[in-house]
Structures are given as structure tokens and as C-alpha cells.
């Protein structure tokens, strides 16, 4: 099996998994929301309502497509497509697990190990706003436009703090921008230099502040409560997707869940050791390598699922911000905090060495 073929399979697989997880995130969201609210949630479509996402999908595919006559048709269609595209693109650089090995050839479970992985993610994330902006603008509806404007300013603002918090992490990992390196470095060494649990040298223990900032920013980047202003139902009806129907709406909703999935993956990779899990070294000695790889994939997905749950948990608990408060939080609290964090990290690394 050539590397190219493997990569192709991997790409397709990741797309399918992303889509599947996004679809079942909608189900999860509804179930979790229901359970947090003392309800049951969907339970009539299939056993436990498991076919709910399929029902939604089929319905959306077959719904009439309305393109408002006053809107810009091309852009109206381009909006959701771009949103979906950028949502899916990020997954390329995430290391999904330890490499597999077949017949002496090593197959990395990562589509592209580019040396600027983090920057790539930041770049693609910064493009995510186009889908929303274009869609919102093309709808030619004031609520949509307001949503689009809110989304764009919010995403630009929080990108900065996000980048700054990542810098502190990068300082920890000898400045490598490759996600693979970052994850690997969290699997090596001892925690705080003396706690010897293999695969537990996670960045969250060194960078709790950066972790919180990154988490908050990823909430903002994915437009989830408490930062769901662009689509806040009680204010803007649907926000940027107010005018969308059928699958174009589906793409937006789907894209949001894919974004959530990917940002959970990124958080896990940056702060929670990615595919590393405690005892990974020991397992490596007793189990075949490929099995450990699969376990590591499972470990990563476990972390991802926890974060997806966390995203939902927070959404159904917390009120949302107001536009100006959101901006103030981003610029006046998170930004300085992230910079101070970088300075302190840098200072410690400079004066106390590695």
C-alpha cells in the first residue's frame, strides 16, 4: 500500500468521521440538552431516537430551496459551501494517533505533517468567517447582516487571544509549530520533571491559563454559547442563517458541529496530550504496536468527545454575552492575560531553563 493511497484513504476516512461525528453531535446536543433539562430528548426516531440525525438530514435534503429574490444568488450559495469547506479543512494537520506499521512501512495517522501546523490551523480558522459573512450579507436581511457583522468582528477579535495563548504553548515545545511534534513532546518526559507517568506530560499542567484562554476563544470561534451572538435566537432569530433553508442551512449547522469537533481535537492536541494517555509506554511494551496505535486513537477521541460534551454542557448552562461585553472580554481581559502569560512563560523558561 503506497503512502499516497493510505493518505487518500485517511482523508476520506477523516471526512466521513467528521461528518458522522457532526451528525451525531446534533443528536448528542439534543440528548444532552434534554438530559440537563430533565427531559428525555428525541426518542421516537429509531431506538432511543438514534435515527434522528438521519431524519433531519433526509428532511433537509428534500426541502425546498429558497433563494430570496433580492439576494445575490451566487454568494448566497457560496456562503454555506465556504463555511463547510473551511470547517473540514482544519482536520488535515491533526495527528489522530500513533503511526501504524504494516510490513515495515510506517503510516502516520495524519494527513499532512506540515511544519507549520498550528499556523495552518490559525489560517484556516481565520478563513472560517468568510462563509458566515458572505452568507449573511447575501441574504439581504437585516438580521442576517447583523449576525454576519457580529460573527466577523467576534472571530477576528478572539483569534488574536487564541494565537497569543498558543504562543505560550509553543514556547514550551521548543518552538516547533508542527502539531505532531507538540503532541509527541507531551508524551515524553516527566510531569513537572519528577512525576513519572508516561504519556502524562500534558501542557495543561504547565499552561492552565493558556488552556482556559484557548478554550474560551474556541467557544467564540465556533459561535457557541456564551458567544453565540451571531445566531442568537432570541435576538436575531437565526442570525446569519435566518434566510437559509434546506441543505444550505444544513451545511451551516453541520459546519458548526464540525468546527466544534475540530476545535475539540485541537484543544486535546495542544493541551491534553493528543493521543497520549497515561501508561502509553507500558502498553507499548506489552501490546503489539498497532493495537497501541488504535488505543491512542481511541484516547484522542475520548478527549474529543469529552470536549464536545463540555461545549454542550456549557451551552445549556450559561447565558450569553452582549456584543460590547464580548468585545471587552476579548480585548481587555483575554488579550492582556494571554500576553502576560506569554511573558511569564518566557521569563520562566529563560531564567530557570528547561
Amino acid at each position, binding site marked *: 500500500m503506497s503512502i499516497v493511497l493510505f493518505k487518500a484513504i485517511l482523508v476520506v476516512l477523516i471526512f466521513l468521521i467528521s461528518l458522522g461525528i457532526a451528525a451525531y453531535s446534533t443528536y448528542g446536543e439534543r440528548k444532552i*440538552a434534554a438530559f440537563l433539562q430533565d427531559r428525555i430528548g*428525541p426518542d*421516537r426516531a429509531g431506538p432511543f431516537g438514534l435515527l*434522528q440525525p438521519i431524519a433531519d438530514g433526509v*428532511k433537509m435534503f428534500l426541502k425546498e430551496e429558497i433563494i430570496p429574490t433580492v439576494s445575490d444568488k451566487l454568494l448566497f450559495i457560496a456562503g454555506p459551501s465556504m463555511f463547510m469547506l473551511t470547517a473540514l479543512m482544519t482536520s488535515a494537520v491533526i495527528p489522530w494517533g500513533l503511526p501504524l506499521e504494516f510490513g515495515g512501512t510506517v503510516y502516520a495517522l495524519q494527513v499532512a505533517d506540515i511544519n507549520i501546523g498550528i499556523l495552518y490551523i490559525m489560517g484556516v480558522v481565520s478563513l472560517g468567517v468568510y462563509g458566515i459573512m458572505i452568507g449573511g450579507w447575501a441574504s439581504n436581511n437585516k438580521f442576517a447582516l447583523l449576525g454576519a457583522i457580529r460573527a466577523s468582528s467576534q472571530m477576528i477579535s478572539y483569534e488574536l487571544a487564541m494565537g497569543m495563548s498558543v504562543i505560550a504553548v509553543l514556547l514550551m515545545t521548543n518552538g516547533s509549530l508542527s502539531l505532531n511534534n507538540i503532541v509527541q513532546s507531551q508524551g515524553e518526559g516527566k510531569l513537572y520533571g519528577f512525576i513519572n507517568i508516561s504519556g502524562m506530560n500534558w501542557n495543561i499542567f504547565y499552561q492552565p491559563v493558556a488552556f482556559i484562554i484557548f478554550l474560551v476563544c474556541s467557544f467564540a470561534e465556533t459561535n457557541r454559547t456564551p458567544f453565540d451572538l451571531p445566531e442568537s435566537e432570541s435576538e436575531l*432569530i*437565526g442570525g446569519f*442563517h435566518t434566510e*437559509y*433553508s434546506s441543505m444550505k442551512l444544513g451545511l451551516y449547522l453541520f459546519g458548526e458541529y464540525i468546527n466544534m469537533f475540530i476545535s475539540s481535537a485541537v484543544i486535546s492536541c495542544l493541551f491534553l496530550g493528543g493521543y497520549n494517555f497515561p501508561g502509553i509506554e507500558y502498553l507499548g511494551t506489552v501490546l503489539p504496536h498497532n493495537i497501541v496505535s488504535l488505543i491512542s486513537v481511541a484516547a484522542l477521541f475520548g478527549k474529543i468527545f469529552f470536549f464536545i460534551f463540555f461545549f454542550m454542557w456549557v451551552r445549556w448552562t450559561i447565558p450569553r454575552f452582549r456584543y460590547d461585553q464580548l468585545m471587552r472580554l476579548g480585548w481587555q481581559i483575554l488579550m492582556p492575560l494571554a500576553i502576560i502569560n506569554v511573558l511569564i512563560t518566557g521569563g520562566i523558561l529563560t531564567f530557570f531553563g528547561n
Partner: protein
Amino acid sequence: MSNIQVSPPPPGIEGSGFFATTFEKAVGLARANSIWPLPFATSCCGIEFMATMAANYDLARFGSERISFSPRQADLLMVTGTIAKKMGPVLRQVYLQMAEPRWVIAVGACASSGGIFDTYSVLQGIDKVIPVDVYVPGCPPRPEQLIDGILKIQELVKNEPLKRRESPEYKALLASYGIE
């Protein structure tokens, strides 16, 4: 498109209503389980709708908890409450903005028939301005009745042929309301 000849259906069983194929059934089932309501809540029934949404009755079980206030995204227009004559055109506008397939449920006495308000200012039933699929009696109906209405709608959705919305009968129905 292609050179496959479509053989004419056997006489007598053509037309909407017949030939609900397996595909159509599957689609109907899917649609029925994913009805996103647009609560056009004007008065008392709206509160009862809230009660239906809340924990005790949980409309989510039917796949309908994602209430979409944007008519574009909604499948089911739930007219819950009195519709005054001043509101009639707005209701119609909302209905027009909805994407096909769309269903309408008139919840409560006021929406269905004007109820107690047989007055100069109240529309005597929303079927004067838009076609209604299911009427739910009660003033306001209890959540049980509301759910009954939703189940009725689901029944309707399940058995609806895909072509119904293009059929001349449906067009004629809309035309009788002066739509399109």
C-alpha cells in the same frame, strides 16, 4: 436524459395517494420525525406551547424541539393563539416565506375558529388566509392535545407522496387562497 422508456402506470391507480413507494415511505418517516415548528405564538396557547416544550411534556421526543423562528427553516407553522385581522396579512406573509413542504396546525379555538372572540377585530379561523392541515381544539389545548396534533401532522407527513406539492390539486388549493 437517457433512453430508458418510462412505461405508463397501469390505469386506475395513478395519481397522488397511490404508489407510496418504499422510498417515499422512508422520506415520509424521516420528515415526520424531524418537524421543526415555527411557533406563531400570539397568546394563551403560546404559553401552553411553552409548557409542551418544557420538561414535563417534552416536544423534543418527536424531533421537534428545534423551534425555528425563521420561517425559511420551519416545516410546521403552529398558529397558537388569536389571530386578529391586523395580524392576518403577517401570518400569510410568514406562511409564504416558508419552504415547501410546509404544514400548518391551528392550535386552540381562536386560531381555528375565532373561538370566544366572535368580534369585528378577530379573524374567524386562520383558514381564511392560509390552508390548515390540523385543527387542535381547546382553549388552550392541553399539552396532550398539542402532542396529539403533532402526531396527527406526523401521520399526514408520513403518508404524503413526494409529488404532492407539485400536484394540480395542491396548486389549486393554494390558488384558492390566492397564493402564487
